[in-house]
């Protein structure tokens, strides 16, 4: 049994891969994960794998994604091999795991999930935006957000909270967007509040939030665009952003079955190929 762990800024994602290439997926809140299961020892993060309680967690996940994920996870104890990646890779080194470069994990995951070898990968996570040009299955060039996280999931969460709607509702709107121009995500909230006062509909406001994500990504995407755009990360669940990407870029947009677990899947794929 092979475990791929993506230590993200918002969530820790675990993909468990069986020998027949079937998967089970688990998701933990990052802070809760570290508090409950992690402990620093000699500068490395030691995770109590046996007490993760994946049997219990899987139920909660399945409920959240309405049966989207394969399961149930039976007989999971300590993993035979762990490959880890993610933002936490730099700050926290997972003990007993092979740690791989985040962008590599995402490229491997996208390649496995879509079967494509030539594509542009757009991964929008909790605090990261990554655009990677992949040619012949290999990373050819990449760009990431640097100083600012205003094009990521965390921004969407904050804006949805201001609008008092959930992420699912936010993702329904793309028509007639209000124009949001603030560079800073926090000032963006103030700007949005101003628009609420001006009387714009929730639909227009939500569309404006979704469109502002695209505007921030546009320079990165236009530099590394190819015929197929593979869209991953938690933000890929946002239907409006998928549509905006299709319309604005005029390319095929593919969202794999498990966009949020793409990095964790990539870790498993790396693990299989490097046994």
């Amino acid at each position, binding site marked *: 049994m092979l475990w791929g762990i993506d230590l993200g800024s918002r969530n820790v994602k675990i993909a468990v891969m069986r020998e027949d290439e079937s998967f089970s997926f688990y998701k933990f809140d990052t802070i809760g994960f570290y508090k409950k299961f992690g402990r620093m020892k000699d500068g490395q993060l030691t995770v109590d794998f046996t007490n993760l309680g994946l049997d219990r967690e899987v139920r909660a996940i399945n409920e959240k994604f309405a049966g989207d994920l394969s399961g149930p996870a039976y007989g999971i104890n300590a993993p035979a091999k762990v490959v880890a990646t993610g933002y936490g890779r730099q700050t926290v080194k997972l003990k007993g795991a092979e740690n791989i470069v985040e962008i590599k994990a995402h490229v491997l995951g996208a390649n496995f999930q879509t079967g494509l070898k030539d594509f542009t990968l757009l991964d929008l996570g909790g605090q990261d935006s990554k655009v990677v040009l992949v040619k012949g299955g290999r*990373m050819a060039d990449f760009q990431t957000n640097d100083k600012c996280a205003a094009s990521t999931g965390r921004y969407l969460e904050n804006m949805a909270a201001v609008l008092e709607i959930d992420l699912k509702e936010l993702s329904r709107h793309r028509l007639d967007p209000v124009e949001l121009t603030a560079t800073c995500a926090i000032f963006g909230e103030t700007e949005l509040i101003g628009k609420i006062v001006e009387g714009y509909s929730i639909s227009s406001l939500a569309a404006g939030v979704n469109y502002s994500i695209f505007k921030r990504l546009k320079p990165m995407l236009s530099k590394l665009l190819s015929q197929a755009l593979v869209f991953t990360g938690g933000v890929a669940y946002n239907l409006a952003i998928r549509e905006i990407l299709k319309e604005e870029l005029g390319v095929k947009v593919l969202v794999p079955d498990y966009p949020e677990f793409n990095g964790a899947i990539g870790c498993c794929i790396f693990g299989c190929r490097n046994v």
Partner: protein
Amino acid sequence: MPKVGITTTIPVEVVYAAGWQPVDLNNSFIASSNPRLLVEEAEMAGYPRNICAWIKGIYSTVRKDEQIKTLIAVTQGDCSNTHALMETLQLTGINVIPFAYPYDRDYDMLKLQIEKLMEAFGVNWQQVYEARQKLNKVREKVRKLDEMTWRSNLVSGWDNHFYQVCCSDFNGNPEEFNKRVEDFLKGSNETAPKQEKIRLGYIGVPPICDDLYAYLEERGARVVYNETQRQFTMPDSVGDFVEQYRKYTYPYGIFYRLADIEREIERRNIDGIIHYAQSFCFRQIEDLIIRERLSLPVLTLEGDMPNSLDARTRMRVDAYLEMLR
């Protein structure tokens, strides 16, 4: 020996000919015990947050060093923020001597600038040439060190950076610095060649974070070319003094710099280029020209405050090295 602060490399021979001691304020700032504090102090004085940290660090360095009463400020060819830097320092009673590198590398304009500098320090051409002769002996050794970096692989990227960057002011004491270089060369000759598989070029201003070179080497990549730092050693130090500073690429246009960069990429067998740009610097715009002109993979890094590499930058460096492998 009176001290004079310099905001970047200037014809330092003039200063030594006059018996003054030049202090490269960038080096003093970054090598100080707490560079971040110097940046904060400039912000307390009223410098905006969204201005390059080097300028702020230089401002506080001059304010703190009571021996620096005179400043040579490069007003063209380096950084336009220097204009306000020198004005804010003038306000505190510092005597400022402006120096401008002409954008088009015009010989007569550059000669005039050098002559004005000579006049300010009261020296003649003969004294300047004599000073150059002494400095060239040190430069020659540092150029040897550079060659040992890329040709015989005996020198690390950091040492290559450090010794070359010191050639802007020779640490204020060319004799002592010369001795230090000699000792280093001797030690390096006795070490085994380095084995890193990936050979990198570093272009742009020197980094504000000091652990980049070591981080790369831990991951099997070594910087074998430091563009700007190498220029500080005047690699084309030919007969005519004005010509020496015309051939010095850093203060002139990007296309002139690129010709030098392309030549060195070829000569040093480089696999990839790291283009470093300081946050809020106009040189960040030039990145698009560099990416278009260079045919090998370019990683653009942006540094803001003096510290070690942040997690995001490390992630990007890792991905870049993975791509080159």
